[in-house]
C-alpha cells in the first residue's frame, strides 16, 4: 500500500474495478462524510438548525464500470445549515475518486454579509486508512490547502 495519496490514487485508478472494493470505498466515504457533518454540527451548536434530508448518490465512473445499481450505492447526506429560517451553508459531496485526494465535499456558505462563497473540502487521508485529513480550499487559491477545523465555519458564516 502506498504511503502517499497521489501514488495510492494513481495505483487504484489503474486497477480493474472490483465491485466489492468499490462498495467498500463508497461505504467508507459515507462514514467519513457523515462523521464530518457530525463534527460540524457539534462545533456550531444549538444556534443553528440542521437538515440532512437531501441525498447524494455517486454516479462516478467506478460505480458505472462495476454496474452497481442505485439500490447498492450508499446514499450520502447533503447537509443544510440554517439560522433563523435562513439557509447559511450547504455541504454537498462532490466526488470520491480524485487523483491526489480521497474525496471532495463542496461547502457553500451564504454569510450574513451577503453573497455566496464556495470552498472545497478535500480529504488528504489514504484510502481505507480509517483516518481523515480534511483540508479547506478556496477554489481561486487551490494550491493552499490548510487543515479544516470545523470551528472556523462559524467565522465564515459571519
Amino acid at each position, binding site marked *: 500500500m*502506498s504511503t*502517499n*495519496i*497521489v*501514488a495510492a490514487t*494513481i*495505483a487504484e*485508478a*489503474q486497477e480493474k474495478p472490483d465491485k466489492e472494493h468499490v462498495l467498500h470505498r463508497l461505504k467508507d466515504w459515507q462514514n467519513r462524510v457523515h462523521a464530518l457533518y457530525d463534527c460540524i454540527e457539534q462545533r456550531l451548536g444549538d444556534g443553528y438548525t440542521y437538515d440532512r434530508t437531501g441525498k447524494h448518490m455517486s454516479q*462516478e*465512473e467506478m460505480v458505472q464500470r462495476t454496474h452497481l445499481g442505485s439500490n447498492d450505492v450508499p446514499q450520502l447526506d447533503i447537509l443544510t445549515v440554517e439560522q433563523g429560517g435562513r439557509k447559511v451553508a450547504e455541504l454537498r459531496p462532490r*466526488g470520491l*475518486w*480524485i*487523483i*491526489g*485526494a480521497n474525496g*471532495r465535499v463542496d461547502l*457553500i456558505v451564504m454569510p450574513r454579509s451577503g*453573497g*455566496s*462563497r*464556495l470552498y472545497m473540502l*478535500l480529504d*488528504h487521508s489514504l484510502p481505507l486508512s480509517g483516518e481523515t485529513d480534511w483540508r479547506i*480550499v*478556496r*477554489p*481561486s*487559491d*487551490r*494550491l*493552499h*490547502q490548510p487543515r479544516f477545523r470545523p470551528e472556523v465555519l462559524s467565522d465564515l458564516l459571519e
Partner: protein
Amino acid sequence: MSDGVTLGDLQGAYKRVTARIYRLLEDGYDFAVEEKIIATLDLDALIVDAAFFVLIFGQIENRVNELAVRRIGADRRRAEALREARFDRRLNSALPGSGNKSPRDEIAGWYNIRRGPAHGERFAASYNVATVFERAFQLEALVDEQLSQAGHQGMQRE
C-alpha cells in the same frame, strides 16, 4: 522553443491560471446557483488540471531521460535513440534493480494516467493538483539524487 521550464515555473503558472478560472466559478455560485454554469466552469477547471498533470509529468519524464542517458554512458547518437525508446525501457534504464521498484512503479503509474489526456482519450474524473505538485517535487528530488550519484560515478570511472 523555450527550455528550462521547471516544476516551480509550472506551479506559479498553475496558481495564476486557476485563480482566474476559479474566481469565475466562485462568482458562478454568487450570481447564479445554476448547476449548468457550475458544471461548465468545473469542466474548464478539469481540463486545465489535466493539462497541468501532463506538463508536470513531462518534467519527471525529462529527468528520467537524463538519468537513463547518464546511466548507460551513451554517446549523442545512442542518447537520441534512447529518448525515442518506449517509456518503460527508459524508466528501467534510469531506475534499475529491485531497490528502485517502488519509485519505478509509481512513475510508470503517472505515465499511464497521463496517457489519457495526452492522447485525447479519457481524463481522470478529477485531480488535486496541489498534492500532485507536492509529490512531483519529491520524485524530482529522488531522481536528481540518483542523477548526482550517477554523475559522480561517471567522473570516477573517467
